[in-house]
C-alpha cells in the first residue's frame, strides 16, 4: 500500500488549517508564495536546460557505456556485480535517466535477482549529485562549488558499494 498521498494530504490540509487558526489571510499568503515559486522556476530553467542537454549528449555519445566497461573490474573487487553498474554510473547525473536504466536492468535480470535488488538499492539511496548541485548553486548564481562534488561523490560511492552487501 502506498501511504505517500495520505502524508501529502495531511501536510497540505494541516498547513492551511493551522494558517486559518492563526488568522493568516491564507489566499493572500499562498499567492505571494506562489509568485515567488513561479519566478524561481523560471530562474532555474536555463540551468536545468544546460544540465539536461549535457546529460543527454553524454548518454548519446556512449560515454556511460565506456565508463561501465572501465569500472567493471573495479566493481568486482568491491563485490558489486558489473551488471548493476549502468544504474550506478548514470545515477549521479540524472534521476529520470537512472530510472529508465533500472527498468532495463529489472527486465533483463529480474527484480528479485541479486543484480536487480542491488540496482534498486543503488537507485533508492543515492541522489543525482551533479544535477542537484548545478540547480541549487545555479539558482543563486554561485560558480565556485568548493568541495561539494568530492564530498557528495564519496558518500554516493560508499553507498553503492554497501548496496551489494545489503542486497545479499
Amino acid at each position: 500500500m502506498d501511504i505517500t498521498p495520505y502524508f501529502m494530504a495531511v501536510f497540505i490540509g494541516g498547513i492551511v488549517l493551522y494558517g486559518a487558526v492563526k488568522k493568516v489571510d491564507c489566499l493572500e499568503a499562498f499567492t505571494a508564495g506562489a509568485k515567488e515559486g513561479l519566478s524561481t522556476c523560471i530562474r532555474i530553467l536555463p540551468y536545468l536546460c544546460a544540465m539536461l542537454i549535457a546529460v543527454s549528449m553524454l548518454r548519446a555519445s556512449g560515454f556511460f557505456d565506456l565508463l561501465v566497461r572501465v569500472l567493471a573490474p573495479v566493481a568486482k573487487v568491491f563485490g558489486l556485480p558489473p551488471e548493476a553498474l549502468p544504474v550506478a554510473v548514470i545515477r549521479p547525473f540524472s534521476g529520470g535517466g537512472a530510472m529508465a536504466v533500472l527498468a532495463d536492468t529489472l527486465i533483463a535480470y529480474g527484480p528479485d535477482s541479486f543484480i536487480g535488488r542491488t540496482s534498486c538499492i543503488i537507485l533508492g539511496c543515492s541522489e543525482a549529485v551533479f544535477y542537484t548541485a548545478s540547480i541549487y548553486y545555479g539558482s543563486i548564481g554561485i560558480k565556485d562549488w568548493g568541495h561539494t562534488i568530492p564530498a557528495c561523490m564519496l558518500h554516493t560511492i560508499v553507498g553503492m558499494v554497501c548496496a551489494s552487501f545489503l542486497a545479499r
Partner: protein
Amino acid sequence: MTKNIWTNLVVLSALFGLCWGTLGELPTAAMDGAAQAVELTVTMAGAYMLWMGLLEIGHQSGLNDKMARGLGKILGPLFPGVRRDKEAMGAICMNIAANTLGMGSAATPFGLKAMERMKKIQNAKSATYDMIMFLVLNTSSLLLIPTSIIALRTACGSTDPFSVTLPIILDSCIMTVVGIATAILMGRRMR
C-alpha cells in the same frame, strides 16, 4: 579539464562522439535535453507554486518557526553559520522532511529557498561550509518509502516489491553518517 563541470561534460561528449562515431547523434540528443527542460519546467511550475505558496502560509502562521525549532535542535549543530536564522533553518528542515517523506516535488523549492537565504545571510560569493553540508545531507537523504522503485518492481513481476525498502533505509543512514563526517573533515579549513 576546467573547474566548470558543465563545460567538461559537453566537451567530453563531443570527444567521445568523435572517437566512437556517435557524433551525428549528439545534436538530436542536445535538442531532446533542451525540450525536456522546458517540459519539466511546465510540469514543475505548478508544483513549485503549490509548495512555495504553502511555505508562505506556514511562514506567516509561525508554523515554519516551530518546525525549525523542533528539527533545528537536531540539525542546528551541523549548520554553525546559519543555525540562528529561523528562515534558513525552516527551509532546510522542510527540505529534509519533504525528501524523507518522498515528496520530491516539494523538496526542491524548499531547498532552493534555503540556498537563497544562506547566500543572503552569509553574503556568499562561493559555496560556504553550510551550503556544502546542506547538499551532502540532501544527496544522502533518507527516503522512507521509495514509491517509484516499488512501483517499477511490481510492474516487473517482483514477488516481494517491498523487500528493498529496509536495505535502502539502512544504506541511506550509512551514507548520511559518511557524508556528514566528510563534510566536517573537508570543511575544516573553511570554518
